[in-house]
């Protein structure tokens, strides 16, 4: 699933540590680590909003997408 999570890039730009962001938005460090590596099934809008508010960015700064025809089939299988 080629949704790319660029959270580590934004953390580096804002010079914010993972631990600090996790505490600020109320998720565990391990969940944040999973999110950074793109190993989560999904992200709640509330979590995304909290990240964007803390890092002063837009969702598009954190998430990117590589087009793939496989994603059309994946949506119908879910």
């Amino acid at each position: 699933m080629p949704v790319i999570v660029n959270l580590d890039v934004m953390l580096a730009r804002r010079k914010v540590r993972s631990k600090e962001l996790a505490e600020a938005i109320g998720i565990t460090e391990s969940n944040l680590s999973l999110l950074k590596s793109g190993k989560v099934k999904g992200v709640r809008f509330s979590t995304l909003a909290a990240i964007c508010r803390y890092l002063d960015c837009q969702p598009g700064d954190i998430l990117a997408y590589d087009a793939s025809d496989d994603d059309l089939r994946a949506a119908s299988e879910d």
Partner: protein
Amino acid sequence: MRVAALWALAAAPQALVPGWTLACSDAGGCRQAADVATLLPEGQRSALAGDPAAATRLAAHVARPAVHLGLATLTLLEEGLLVFLFVAVGRTLRRLGAGGDGGGDGALARALPWLRRGAFAALLWSLAQPLTDSARSILLYSGTPGGAAWYIGIDLTIAGPALLLAIAAYAIAWALEAGVRAERDLADFV
């Protein structure tokens, strides 16, 4: 599980000795009896009551290996399903009561498959009841004065409510399992 074992213990003599019963009372203690006429429908039973020779012929008919095996198989099928139901309910309660990973949700997820199996066994038992009663009567009719005959007896007094309850239990277990799966999926969302 102990209840299941006791039930199996009680079912075994019934399979080995058709018409076996154990009656206990304060006055007379426990008395066992083996009367195959109790396995017949009410009408046939009363016809045999006043005819000792017919009762003897019926007992001889039941003693035949093929008939004996057929009656034992039917009893084991019915009682086997009930024993499995007891086992399934016991395992469901044990898993619900046990702690372990995931606390309450984990216990529920582990218990639900057994609840579903128990409900399915109850469903099969309800459907089997009229069939085994009919098959038992057909087997025995050859030993009665009336001779061999077809008998299809569908008494929904017990099987009907049991079937409805079993379907309800199965539907509940199915819905709960779907809910637990959905909750697990959501748990992967951060």
